[in-house]
């Protein structure tokens, strides 16, 4: 940095490079400069870190584009003027213009896309219904309602990195050279190739990891010394700074995905909590005397109405709809 251009001129070019404004030859000469000047390389690393940490806006994937178009079409039709025959020519012209613009857009976009491919972030979100997606490495992830997963695909990087908000069931494709890492509400989960469920809804302050197959390493993001290694059937729980191992995991952990429910002398209040989680309902119990009544029953992918019918006859209670909510009334048990 002692000879040639000063910092200022160099960072100008660096910024243009980050923004995708440099021609290929310019970019190549910049890269060569970096290799020969460690000071410039340090600066480059810092700028790149800042640029990448801020992140571009991610395309929202996993949305139902047909439904989005229908939704918009309704609004659009309402606002649309009726076209007079006299306007035909003008329409034709603007039609051609839109066509030309679309083409330019496609070309511009594909160039930009190719450039940005090296560090692509994909965001998946499930709104009202669970959503199953396949990531670039072949791993399958099912997201529960109101959950979001971001996956960072970077060529040549050691880790397959993702960030989870909410709950998801992972079936990670085996790749021992590239560990799969999930960051969820202040915890890190690292695996090579297994299946497991993570429940990390924001605001609950709790993260529960339940393993179905293989081994999973679970630790607080800021303190890797406290690490739990979980085996199939185990759960790890992170709550208020405490990391605990639960040897026998709740059998209903993935019921939100499979709708397979197992209750064995389970208190009614807990049954209702689980059903609310699995079916996205808000059912509450009117009579506190019902809360502790033990329930033993299994359901295999039943619709909500049959689940309710079975519970009504088992416990002699009534499920009454009150707008969005459902209220359970009844006498209580002996």
């Amino acid at each position, binding site marked *: 940095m002692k000879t040639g251009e000063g910092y200022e001129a160099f*960072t100008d070019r660096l910024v243009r490079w980050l*923004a995708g404004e440099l021609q290929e030859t310019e970019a190549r000469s910049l890269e060569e400069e970096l290799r020969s000047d460690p000071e410039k390389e340090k600066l480059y690393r810092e700028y790149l870190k800042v640029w990448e940490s*801020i992140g571009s*806006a991610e395309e*929202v994937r996993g949305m139902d584009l047909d439904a989005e178009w229908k939704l*918009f079409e309704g609004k*659009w039709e309402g606002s649309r003027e009726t076209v*007079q025959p006299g306007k035909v020519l003008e329409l034709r012209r603007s039609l051609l213009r839109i066509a030309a613009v679309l083409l330019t857009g496609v070309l511009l976009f594909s160039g930009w896309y190719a450039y940005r491919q090296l560090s692509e972030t994909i965001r998946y979100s499930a709104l009202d219904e669970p959503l199953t997606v396949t990531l670039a490495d072949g791993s399958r992830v099912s997201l529960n309602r109101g959950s979001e997963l971001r996956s960072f695909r970077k060529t040549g990087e050691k880790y397959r990195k993702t960030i989870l908000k909410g709950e998801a069931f992972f079936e990670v494709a085996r790749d021992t050279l590239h560990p799969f890492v999930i960051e969820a509400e202040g915890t890190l989960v690292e695996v090579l190739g297994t299946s497991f469920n993570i429940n990390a809804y924001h605001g609950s302050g709790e993260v529960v990891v339940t393993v179905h197959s293989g081994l999973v390493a679970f630790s607080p*993001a800021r303190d890797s010394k406290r690490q739990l290694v979980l085996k199939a059937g185990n759960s790890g729980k992170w709550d208020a700074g405490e990391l605990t191992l639960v040897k026998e995991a709740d059998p209903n952990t993935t019921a939100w995905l499979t709708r397979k429910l197992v209750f064995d002398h389970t208190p009614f209040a807990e049954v209702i909590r689980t059903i609310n989680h699995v079916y996205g309902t808000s059912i509450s119990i009117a009579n506190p005397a019902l809360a502790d009544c033990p329930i033993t029953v299994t359901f295999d992918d039943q619709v909500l109405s049959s689940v309710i019918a079975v519970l009504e006859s088992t416990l002699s209670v009534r499920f009454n709809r009150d707008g969005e909510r459902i209220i359970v009334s009844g006498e209580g048990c002996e």
Partner: protein
Amino acid sequence: MKIREAEYSLPDEKQLFEQAFRKYFPGLLGFALKYLPDRDDAREVVHQVFINLWERRSEIDFSEPLKSYLFTSVYNRSLNVIRDRKKLSREDRIPDRADESELSSRIETTELEQRIGESIAALPEKCREVFELSRFGGLKYSEIAAQLGISVKTVENHMNKALKILRERLIDYLTIVVWLLWKSMN
């Protein structure tokens, strides 16, 4: 005859419009979500931009790329929504409806994201606008210049300034976070 021609030509234009919607909607929604965490708000902004595009299709200068027009419009409308909200909450302080705030609080930002958000918000206004259109919208300098009515050189200056300030504010913090992550993985 003329009427039949109109009926015939209409679907094509609508199809092109639908094509544009399908192509840009996912990106524009993601862009709007950077500013409006509530998905319904973000969707509404993008809808308004497309309705406006349709209504003004004979006036708009399509020699500029459609993409930059759409992103700039979403940007401006998103900021309008934020400004109106601020005004409203200062005057009335209407409590949020529980169901509306639920999703946005679930998808709340992590500490790092918050730090980044604050640093961007602290940039001078024009500087921030240019930076966000480049980084979040993926627009080229020339597209930003055309949309904002400034020169490419000015865009470049704003970008340099933005990155300089952001680096000063974030680099120490980023180094620590990355180190912690690395450490916890090894």
